[in-house]
């Protein structure tokens, strides 16, 4: 089971956090501090796993961002690397060659996509196409609602 997902920039800035196991707000910031210290300081070419408090943290760097997932000691680390890559590929298709700035200004989108990929710390969908389809269906609903609201408020504004 994945206990949490963490996206940290090379400067140690948090870009996304998702918690599937209960951590208080205080514990969360402690975890982030501790782990980014360990992971950012690991050299290149080392393995992508860090043992930490009886758990394992699988991380992978994509450009300036570190994607980290914390799993149980007996879970399959290699698979988690694939899950991370799967997520990155979906982000990449959604944003069109994604970069850190996309994830900063559209952080909520990154969360929405993650929610279509993982629930309860388990993988939900192995097809990138399906995830993209479901996300775009929901985006369209938001757009439609916006237009509708826009036109109503426009009418109200005109009337008054």
């Amino acid at each position, binding site marked *: 089971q994945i206990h949490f997902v963490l996206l940290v920039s090379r400067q140690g800035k*948090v*870009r*996304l*956090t*998702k*918690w*599937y196991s*209960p*951590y*208080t*707000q205080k514990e969360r*910031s402690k975890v*982030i501090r501790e782990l980014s210290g360990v992971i950012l300081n690991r*050299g290149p*070419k*080392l*393995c*992508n*796993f*860090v*043992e930490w408090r009886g758990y394992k943290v699988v991380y992978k760097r994509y450009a300036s961002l570190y994607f980290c997932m914390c799993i149980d000691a007996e879970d*399959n*680390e*290699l*698979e988690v*690397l*694939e*899950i991370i890559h*799967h997520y990155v590929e979906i982000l990449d298709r959604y944003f069109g060659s994604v970069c850190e700035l996309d994830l*900063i*200004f559209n*952080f*909520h989108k990154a*969360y*929405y996509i993650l*929610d279509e990929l993982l*629930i*309860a710390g*388990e*993988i*939900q*969908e*192995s*097809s*990138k*196409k*399906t995830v993209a389809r*479901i996300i775009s*269906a*929901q985006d369209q*609903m*938001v757009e439609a*609602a*916006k237009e509708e*609201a*826009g036109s109503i*408020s426009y009418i109200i504004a005109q009337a008054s």
Partner: protein
Amino acid sequence: MNSIFSGTRLRDMIRSIRACKTAAEERGVVRKECADIRASINENDPHDRHRNLAKLMFIHMLGYPTHFGQMECLKLIASPGFPEKRIGYLGLMLLLDERQEVLMLVTNSLKQDLNHTNQYVVGLALCALGNICSAEMARDLAPEVERLIQFRDPNIRKKAALCSTRIVRKVPDLAENFINAASSLLKEKHHGVLITGVQLCYELCTINDEALEYFRKKCTEGLIKTLRDITNSAYQPEYDVAGITDPFLHIRLLKLLRVLGHGDADASDLMTDILAQVATKTESNKNAGNAVLYECVETIMAIEDTSSLRVLAINILGRFLSNRDNNIRYVALNMLMKAIAFDDQAVQRHRVTILECVKDPDASIRKRALELVSLLVNENNVKQLTKELIDYLEISDEDFKEDLSAKICSIVEKFSPEKIWYIDQMLKVLSEAGKLVKDDVWHALIVVISNASELHGYTVRALYKAVLTYSEQETLVRVAIWCIGEYGDLLVNNVGMLGIEDPITVTESDAVDVVEDAITRHNSDMTTKAMALVALLKLSSRFPSISERIKDIIVKQKGSLLLEMQQRAIEFNSIVDRHKNIRSSLVERMPVLDEATFNVRRAGSLPASVSTMAKPSVSIPNGVAAAPLVDLLDLGSDDIMAAPSSSGADFLQDLLGVDLGSSSAQSGASPGPKAGADLLMDILSIGTPSPAQNNTSSVDLLSTAGINNNPSNALDTLSSPAPPHIATSASAGGMFDLLDGLSPSPSKEATNGPAYPPIVAYESSTLKIEFTFSKPSGNPQETNVQATFINLSPDTFTDFIFQAAVPKFLQLHLDPASSNTLPASGNITQNLRVTNSQHGKKSLVMRMRIGYKLNGKDVLEEGQINNFPRGL
């Protein structure tokens, strides 16, 4: 649309935060934004909510408090529109966690959304529930989720399946409700639904035996077929990852087959073929393929014996181990640890490669490899492996030395074929990493040295040589000083030369130099200095010719800033000066330290006070300790030989002043009985033993029978010697043995581990709380506490809740109480698990608060619990 309202847009806020050059500047921007958001929340305009929450989420990620936005999430979730709900649920998952009570308020909205006509709204609710639901919410909403597993749209079915996984994790009792629905998912073709369905089945199998039986009977063959189909399937672009069709599905299927095959030969038989196929046919040049292979190996090793498959598995691990990819090597080391269980020989074949991994630049790999090596050690290869590890210790990174030296020590201790080898290896470790070695390791070394009388001369000479080179290794210095103090005469006279030794010339003054060096070096710590002082006292008698010089060194310490040193220096000086007649008997060589007792003590299963009781029954057979016991009773005796009645480790600590907590001012309060130290102090102050001590010991003598008949009473005195008993508990221990000889009773109590008396943690006019204690075997830091709450009033308490807080060195885990309603004169129980990271140093302490409703009124009671038994 938002632009016509007040406040900045989300994008602008992010820009201005990113433009900040200093942390203070950023705080300023965030503070202002938060103030605006609060104001906007107070105006309660629904149009701003969406944007406010988005901003708060960003601020939250930066680490600022955002609790004031929690209610906004609930409002957004309750609004009718999809965009509001979408951001509301996202905020809920980010800003709240399952332990916050606000979360309960969302249950109703969730229930409505789970029944919503729009499937995407249902999806949002399922996702939120699956990610953060608490046990109560799980119970409330389980029927809804169960129904949704059969929903027409696959997107909802897969979400409902994972949501159910969370529900059964939170409330295992609900597992059986999901068995049928879960098995229906296994027939699906949609990969998402299949993956989540298999996951749900796996979860159910691990928590519910009925479910396991059910799936094993009904689904094993179907799952095997599914696995075969995807393994053999043609290229499917949608699911292909590096040539493997849906590795995620592969892995989940293999995982479920693992639990079905484990412990069931028939099911294991059925899956042999497909496992062999996966193990041989899967491409291993990409990570995805290796992930599948790795899972397959794990399944092969877990199911019932099919030895041909295991050969395959071991071969795969061998290939992994020689892979150049660090990730693959890491998982290989991990799996080989499990493989040792059924094929030690096969793993031994890779010993050389594994040893190489111990020297890897990657800390994660080193750590795994070291764990694995320590499992590979046996009587036959211990010498060779230890040599390799020690050679590497000399050149390894500083930050790895601690782990490495600890492992070497434990290997050497466990498998040492002979004492001289053990001593040699330990000296090498202490020379290389003496700064990093834990106390119990060098204590153990001293105990072994003390027991190896034929090696005393050899050891002290070896230590002398080592300490000249490695004087910065604290624990090496300590052991060397101790040995020089004890066996200094053997050092200078080359007594007991072994054939392998070269004779060395050490003068008395050379030996004293080493000790003086340790006491004057500014970075020696207090323990080392104190040990050096004792060694000097001993040498003053062993080396009469230079006793004046030794005296000078002692006298200098009278000016020490450390109270302990000052006091010891004054005492020792007075021994040297005024009590020459008793000096030589006072500083006689230490009697052989009792190994058995030390090992028991070290295992940590016994608190200090118990071992004093248990020890004589252990050591009487060797006839060493019996005689001195007489002296212990005769408290006025000037003979320091009385000290051995304290256990080996106590003895060490007391005489060497290692336990610096026991300076005279504190000794009254310190928990361990310090027979040796007390005696020493008695001698030094030349005071006659206080009558009180004589009295109490005779009282104990008289009441011995009573104690024997009443074990709980005896345990009371054993486990929690109140300060006034300190002197007596030690002598009472002596009594026992003198009176009972080899009576098994005390030793039996000792081997069973200590029991702790229950306590009344709290009592008021209406409520009484009792704690009972137990220790789980294996972890001395952990204590299980069962709290019993007893209602003393004539009315029922409802909404009963017990909260507790502990200081930082403790960790507290509270299980749910057996009920939250406490009937008149009834009771409920609740289990607590406390982990004491300062076990042996600090006692437990706890603050608590109890809340309940009595006749409709809220009652709050608070208290602090200080009366925990010692040693928990």
